[in-house]
């Protein structure tokens, strides 16, 4: 139970006491069970079920995965398509429950996976800020207090009261990022470093991410861009077919990963 609490956190600053890991996965497995053919009607389902023709295909997206991420650490995750990276992020963000194993998450998770999930195009930017913040779990009272900062960060002052159907994709992404990172989360999940807006804005995003990290946010970065992993991460994981293939210092793991790719 307290295995994580006993280890000394890698990324923590000196004045802090031993802190429990932010993310702690023990022997995680996720199984998807899908019908081999798509059944769309209840009638069909009942008939198939009664005649015993209902077949399921099992797919293990994750097999047996252990992972610990300490506060203030940035961990990179690499792997081929379908290796289980997205499933891993979904398990950590609670979207999926593992079929087996234990997940312990200490603190608030901010997934930067789907910026603006839940945005409605008929609503204004301002209305969407409140809605999106509520989806992540921030009360509107607190959002109200920080609204001007969010708008300033997104650089959308002139457009914030327009329906977002008039926004460009860059504007949407900026608003999404600004809302998602309105408060410092304990855990930040990033699926590909965002190509949000222009270079200036990207810099601003990176700055904010590093600011979070220096104040104790644990970050998991999934990416196919190996340079961005080696640039930002303390440590890396290589996931292959739902299991951990390698783990360790970023450059070692990346090197083995590239070699592994070259071989196959």
């Amino acid at each position, binding site marked *: 139970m307290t295995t994580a609490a006993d280890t000394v956190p890698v990324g923590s600053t000196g004045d802090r006491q031993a802190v429990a890991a932010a993310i702690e996965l023990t022997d995680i497995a996720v199984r998807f069970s899908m019908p081999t053919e798509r059944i769309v009607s*209840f009638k069909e389902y009942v008939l198939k079920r009664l005649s015993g023709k209902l077949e399921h295909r099992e797919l293990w997206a994750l097999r047996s995965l252990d992972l610990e991420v300490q506060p203030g650490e940035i961990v990179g995750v690499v792997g081929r398509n379908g290796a289980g990276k997205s499933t891993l992020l979904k398990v950590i963000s609670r*979207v999926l429950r*593992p079929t087996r194993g234990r*997940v312990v998450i200490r603190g608030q998770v901010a997934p930067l*996976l789907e910026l603006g*999930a839940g945005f409605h195009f008929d*609503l204004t930017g301002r209305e969407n800020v409140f809605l999106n913040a509520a989806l992540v779990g921030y*009360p509107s009272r607190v959002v109200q207090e920080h609204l001007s900062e969010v708008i300033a960060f997104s650089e959308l002052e002139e457009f914030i009261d327009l329906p977002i159907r008039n926004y460009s994709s860059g504007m949407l992404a900026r608003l999404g990022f600004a809302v998602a990172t309105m408060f410092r989360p304990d855990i930040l999940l990033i699926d590909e470093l965002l190509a949000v807006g222009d270079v200036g804005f990207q810099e601003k995003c990176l700055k*904010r991410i590093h600011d979070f990290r220096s104040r104790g946010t644990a970050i998991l970065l999934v990416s196919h861009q190996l340079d961005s992993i080696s640039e930002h991460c303390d440590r890396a994981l290589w996931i292959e077919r739902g299991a951990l293939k390698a783990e360790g210092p970023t450059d070692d793991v990346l090197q083995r990963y590239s070699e592994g790719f070259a071989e196959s």
Partner: protein
Amino acid sequence: MTDTPTPSPAQPALRQQVYDSSKRSHPSIEELTELVRFWELVIQWTRRNIKLRYKRSILGVVWTLLEPLMLMTILTVVFSTAFRFPTRDYPFPLFILSGLLLFDFFNRSTLQIVEETVASLGLASRIYVPRSVFAVATVLTYLVSWGIALIPLLGIMLVLRQPLSWAILTIPFGMLLTGLFALGVGLLVATLGAFFHDVKLTYQVLLTGWLYATPIIYPLEIVPPQFQKYFLLNPLLHLVALVREPIILARVAPLENWLAALGFSLAALALGWWVFTTQRNVFDYRS
């Protein structure tokens, strides 16, 4: 940009801090505590629904007020000229309208719960949200519309010189019970309807039958006495009474109706909640 970006503040201490998948309670209990934790979202989502309804129509709120009036006019003309049910000492238009507003609420909110549940599958596969949020917000949305629709009804009462009594203050409680009942039925249908297209179609047909099986456009008295006891098994009959009697008879509905309505609503809610929450992992792995 400037060199001094506003440092984003630490997250407000508002959410549960440790999630441990090994310490999970029963899914039905867990969903309930999660719903409470996400209550802010329920309110926000309800406001969103209401805003969207009014943004899409030109007449907006006016439409909500006009629709029941138009409906009532048509039905009153049809039923008071063509069928002529013997009504006692109350105006037939109010009788019909009070019942129809309730049924309309039930009809729309349960169907919309199915819609919202299916629509939220996409959202809930990307970020973590308790799924019941959308169903509860749907019921709240339609409760608000129903409340607004009661305003023209009160106007009609004044025009028809219907006596107003303090009994109308019990109407919100009747509406609340109807909301709980609709939530229970909606969750039940939504659980199956999320997978199978024909479930919703079947339910729609059932709804039409349900409307005619409920004394809404006709009084219970025209039903032959030997069948009336079966009619009493219909939860909507009791719910209609709670809302209708204060309007047409200026009195609080009898205690039997309150007890029956309470029993049916809680039973439906418990069943719907249980099915919806225990089957929800199935939602996740829907292909």
